[in-house]
C-alpha cells in the first residue's frame, strides 16, 4: 500500500534547518555544537518513526514538484531507503559527538564551515535514501559531492587541495559525464524517471533497444563513482587528507554508501532483476566488481598508513555490496544490502579509532603502533572487534552479511564468485589481524598498569566503544534488518 505523506521530507528539512542554525551560530561554539547534537537526534527520530509503516509492507510517497511529464522531485520510502536512511542518520549522532572531541582537541580552524558542510552532506545522504525518482536521486547525489569538497579540502594546504581536486574531478566528472547522459537515455527510452515499485520488472518496456539499455547500465555503473568501483576508485584514498571524522562518516558511510546505494537502487528499481538477468548484466557486474574486491585488498596489504589501509579496505568492501545485489537472487541481494549496515557500523568504528590514535598519540603509521593497545585499551579493543567484523568472523556483524553473500553465490551455483569471497576473506584477515596483533602483543614487555592509559577524550572514546558494541549486537541479532530487507522482495 502507498501512503501519501510528507514524512520522508521531514528528516531532510530537519537537517536543512540544523545546517542553517549551525552557520548562524559562528560566534558561539557551544550553541553551534548543541544544534548539531539536537539536529542529529531529531533526524534519527524522524527516520525511525517511519519504520512501523515500512515493516507493515507499505511505502511512503510524497511528490514535491513536477519538472516535466514523468520527471519529478519526489520521495519514496521503502525498505531499501530506510536501511540507508537509518544508518546515515544514526551514525550522524555518533559522528557529532566524535567531531566535537576531535575538532576541539586539535583546535581546528573554520569549524563552523566544517559543521555546516557536514550537516549538508548528511542532508544529501538522507535525500538520496528517500528519492523516488532518478531526478531526485541525481539532485541529492550532487549535493553530497559539492558540499563534501570543503570538508576534504579542510586543511587548505597543498596536500588538501590536491586531494580535494582529485575528489571533485572524479565525482563531478563521472556524474556530469556519465550519469547525466544515462539519466537522459533512460528517460528517452521509458518516458519516466520514477522508480518501479517492483524490483523484478523495472521501468523499461519489453521492446526497448537492448544495446542502449546496456549502454545506459554501464554509464550508471561507472557514473556513480562514489561506489569506488575500480578503475574509478582513486579519489577515495586521496580524500583521506580530510580530518578523520570526515573520513569516518563520509568516506565509510554517507558518501560511499550513497554510491553503492544508488547502484543498488538503479539495478533493482530502474532495470529490474528480470531485465538484468535476460541481458546477463548482473553476473558480469559481479565478475567485474570481483576484480575490485581482490585488487583493493591486495593494495591494502601494502599500505602502512592506517587511514590508507582503511580506505582500500573500504574500496574492497563496497564492492561486496554491489556484488551481492548483482547476484540477483534473494540471498545475494539481502547480503549485499545488509552489508550497507554492517560495514557502516564496523568501518566507522575503525576510522574513529584511527582518529583517536592520531589525537591521543599523533600516530598515523601502523608500524609505529606497537604496543599501543596498552595505552589505548578501549580504542584498540573496539578496533579488534570491528576488524573481526570486516574479516567476517562470527559473532560480529560482518559474518551475517558474508553468510548471505556465500549463500547467494551457492544458490546460483557460481563457483568463481564463491572463490572470490573466500579469497577476500583471507586477504581481509591478512591486513587487519596484524594491526591488532601489533597493538596488543608487540612492543611492550611486562605487565599492564593503569597509569599507562592515555586515551582520547571521552566524547571520542564513547562513540567508538558504542559503535563496536552495536557491531556485535548486529551480529548476534540480525533479525531486524533481515526482516526489513525482506520487505523489498516481491
Amino acid at each position, binding site marked *: 500500500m502507498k501512503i501519501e505523506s510528507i514524512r520522508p521530507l521531514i528528516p531532510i528539512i530537519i537537517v536543512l534547518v540544523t545546517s542553517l542554525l549551525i552557520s548562524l551560530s559562528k560566534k558561539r561554539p557551544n550553541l553551534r555544537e548543541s544544534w548539531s547534537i539536537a539536529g542529529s537526534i531529531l533526524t534519527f527520530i524522524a527516520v525511525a518513526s517511519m519504520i512501523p509503516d515500512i515493516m507493515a509492507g507499505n511505502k511512503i510517497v510524497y511528490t514535491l514538484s513536477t*519538472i516535466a511529464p514523468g520527471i519529478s522531485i519526489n520521495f519514496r520510502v521503502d525498505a531499501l531507503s530506510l536501511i540507508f536512511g537509518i544508518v546515515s542518520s544514526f551514525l550522524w549522532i555518533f559522528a557529532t559527538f566524535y567531531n566535537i572531541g576531535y575538532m576541539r582537541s586539535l583546535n581546528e580552524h573554520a569549524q563552523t564551515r566544517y559543521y555546516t558542510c557536514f550537516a549538508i552532506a548528511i542532508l544529501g545522504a538522507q535525500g538520496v535514501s528517500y528519492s523516488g525518482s532518478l531526478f531526485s536521486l*541525481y539532485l541529492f547525489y550532487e549535493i553530497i559531492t559539492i558540499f563534501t569538497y570543503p570538508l576534504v*579540502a579542510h586543511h587548505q594546504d597543498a596536500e588538501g587541495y590536491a586531494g580535494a581536486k582529485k575528489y571533485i*574531478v572524479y565525482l563531478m566528472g563521472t556524474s556530469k559525464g556519465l550519469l*547525466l*547522459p544515462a539519466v*537522459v537515455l533512460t528517460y*528517452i527510452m521509458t518516458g519516466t524517471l520514477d522508480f518501479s515499485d517492483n524490483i523484478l520488472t523495472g521501468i523499461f518496456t519489453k521492446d526497448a533497444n537492448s544495446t542502449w539499455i546496456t549502454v545506459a547500465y554501464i554509464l550508471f555503473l561507472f557514473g556513480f563513482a562514489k561506489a569506488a568501483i575500480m578503475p574509478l576508485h582513486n579519489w577515495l584514498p586521496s580524500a583521506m587528507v580530510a580530518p578523520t571524522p570526515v573520513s569516518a562518516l563520509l568516506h565509510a558511510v554517507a558518501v560511499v554508501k550513497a554510491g553503492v546505494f544508488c547502484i543498488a537502487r538503479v539495478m533493482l528499481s530502474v532495470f529490474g532483476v528480470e531485465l538484468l538477468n535476460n541481458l546477463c548484466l548482473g553476473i558480469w557486474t559481479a565478475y567485474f566488481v570481483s576484480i575490485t574486491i581482490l585488487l583493493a585488498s591486495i593494495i591494502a596489504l601494502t599500505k602502512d598508513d592506517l587511514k590508507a589501509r582503511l580506505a582500500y579496505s573500504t574500496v574492497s568492501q563496497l564492492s561486496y555490496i554491489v556484488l551481492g545485489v548483482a547476484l540477483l537472487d534473494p540471498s545475494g541481494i539481502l547480503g549485499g544490502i545488509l552489508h550497507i549496515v554492517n560495514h557502516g557500523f564496523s568501518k566507522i568504528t575503525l576510522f574513529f579509532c584511527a582518529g583517536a590514535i592520531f589525537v591521543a598519540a599523533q600516530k598515523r603509521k601502523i608500524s609505529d603502533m606497537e604496543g599501543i593497545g596498552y595505552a589505548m585499551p578501549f580504542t584498540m579493543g573496539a578496533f579488534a572487534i570491528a576488524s573481526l567484523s570486516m574479516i567476517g568472523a562470527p559473532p560480529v556483524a560482518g559474518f551475517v552479511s558474508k553468510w548471505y553473500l556465500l549463500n547467494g553465490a551457492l544458490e546460483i551455483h557460481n563457483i568463481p564468485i564463491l572463490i572470490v569471497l573466500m579469497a577476500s576473506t583471507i586477504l581481509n584477515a591478512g591486513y587487519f589481524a596484524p594491526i591488532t596483533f601489533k597493538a596488543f602483543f608487540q612492543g611492550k614487555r611486562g605487565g599492564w598498569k593503569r597509569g599507562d592509559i592515555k586515551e582520547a577524550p571521552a566524547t571520542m572514546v564513547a562513540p567508538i566503544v558504542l559503535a563496536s558494541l552495536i557491531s556485535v549486537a548486529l551480529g548476534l541479532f540480525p533479525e531486524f534488518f533481515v526482516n526489513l530487507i525482506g520487505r523489498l522482495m516481491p
Partner: protein
Amino acid sequence: MMALHKYLIMNTLCYPILSIVIFLPLAGAILLLFMRGERSIKMTALITAAINFPLSLIIYSGFDIGTEKFQFGEFAPWIPAYNINYVLGIDGITIFLILLTTLLAPLCILCSWTAIERRVKEFMFCILIMETAMIGVFCALDFILFYVFWEAMLIPMYLLIAIWGGPNKDYASIKFFIYTLFGSVFLLVAIIAVYLTTGTFSIPDAMFRDYGFSFQLWVFLAFAIAFAIKVPMFPFHTWLPAAHTEAPTAGSVFLASVLLKMGTYGFLRFCLPITPKASVFFGPYMIALSVIGIIYGGFVCLSQTDMKKLIAYSSVAHMGFATLGIFSFTVFGWEGALLQMLNHGVTTGALFLCVGIVYERTHSREIYDNVGLGKIMPAYVGFFGLFSISSFAFPGTNNFVGELYVLIGIFSQSKLAGFFSIVGALLAAAYMLRLLKQIVWGREDKREIADMKAREVIYLLPLALFVVWMGLFPRPFVQVIEKTLMNLHSQMNIFLR
C-alpha cells in the same frame, strides 16, 4: 484588420498594457533630460524602471496559457500605403523574456549607483532607451516595427560601451557596432524578401506559407546570419568577449541577459515558422555549430584569467545549448531552449553583477587579484557560489532544468550530438568550479575589503531566489510556454509533410 483575428487576441484591458510597458521607460528617459542633480536623476530612472516591473507582472497574471494565439494585441495603422502597422502582441515565447527585461532594468540601475561616476544623466538615459527597445523587439508583430526596435538597441548599447566602458572600449564598441550592423543588413534583406513575396509586413501573416524551397534557403541564411551574430554562434562570436568585458556592469548584464536572447528569439520567431523546410535542411549544420560553440566556449573559459572574460565566453557555451535545443526540432528541445534563455539571463546577469561588485572594491577583473575572498566577504561568496554552481547546471538550480530539457530533446534526435554536448556540460563544471575555488580560497592575505552593502544584496537577492525557485519548481513556467511551442511543432509538421 480582419485577418488579424486569426492569430491575435486583442487586449481586453481598458489600457494598452504592452504600449505602456514599452514606452514608460522612454517617457522616463525624456523626463531625465529636463532634470538636474545626480541623485534625483538616479532616483527617477530607478523609479521608472521599478514601476515597469509590476506593470509587466499584470501581463503575466492576465496571460492565458490555454491559447496559442498572440495576446494583449494592439493595432493601429502606421503607414497604410505600404501596409505597415503598429501591431503588438505576445505569446509563450516572449512573455518571460519581457519579464526578464523589466526585472533586470531596475537591478542594472541599482548596480550602477556608485559605479558610474560621470555623465550619469546620459547613462541612465541610455539604459532606459535600451529597455524600451528591448521590450519593443519582443512585442512587435510587424516587421518594420520590429526592425525599428531592433536597430534602436544598437546606438545606446554602443554608447554604453564606448563611453562608460573599460580600457579597451574603443575597439570593443566599434567591433560590436560593425558586427551587429552587418547582421542587421541581412535581417533587412530577409524582411524585404518576405515582403516582396507576401505583400505584408505582418509577422504572423508571413508564417507557415507555401514558400518555394530555394526561397526558404536564401531567406533562412539571411535571417540566420543576423541571429547567429546576435546569439552568438560559433564562428560569429568574436565580438562578444570584447564587448562583454569592456562594457560597464549594467551594459554587460543587458548584453548577456537580454541582447543575446534576441538571436535565439529570432530563430524561434522567424526561422522556424517562416522557413521551416530550410530550417530542417540546415538543422544538422546548426547543431554542429552549436556543439562546437559549447565545447569551444568551454575550453576557452578554462584558460581565462579575467573573470569577466570567463563569464563572457561561458555565454557562448550556454547559448550553444539554447540553439542546440531549437534545432533539435522537438518540443522538449524548444522548451529547454526557452528555459535556457531565461536562466542564462538570470544567472549570467547575476554573475556579471557579482564581478561588478568586486570590481568596485579591488578595481581589477583579474581572477588573481580577487582570490581568497571566503573569509573577507562571506555574504558575497555565498551569492557568487550559488550563481556559479547554477551556471554549470547544478541540479536543483535553474540552469539544470533547461539543460535537461535540451539534452532530452537532442538525445531523442541524435545521440551523437547529445554525447558531444555532454562534454560541454563537463567543461562548464570544470571552469566554474575552478573560478569558484580561486575566488573563495585562492590565497589568504589580510585585506580590508568591505562585504556587500544592503543595496547590493537587494539586487542580487531576487535573482538568487529565482535560481532556486526555478530549479525546484519549473513546471509552472513550462506550462506558460508549452501551448505556443506545441502549436509551433504541429504547424511545422504539417508543413514538412
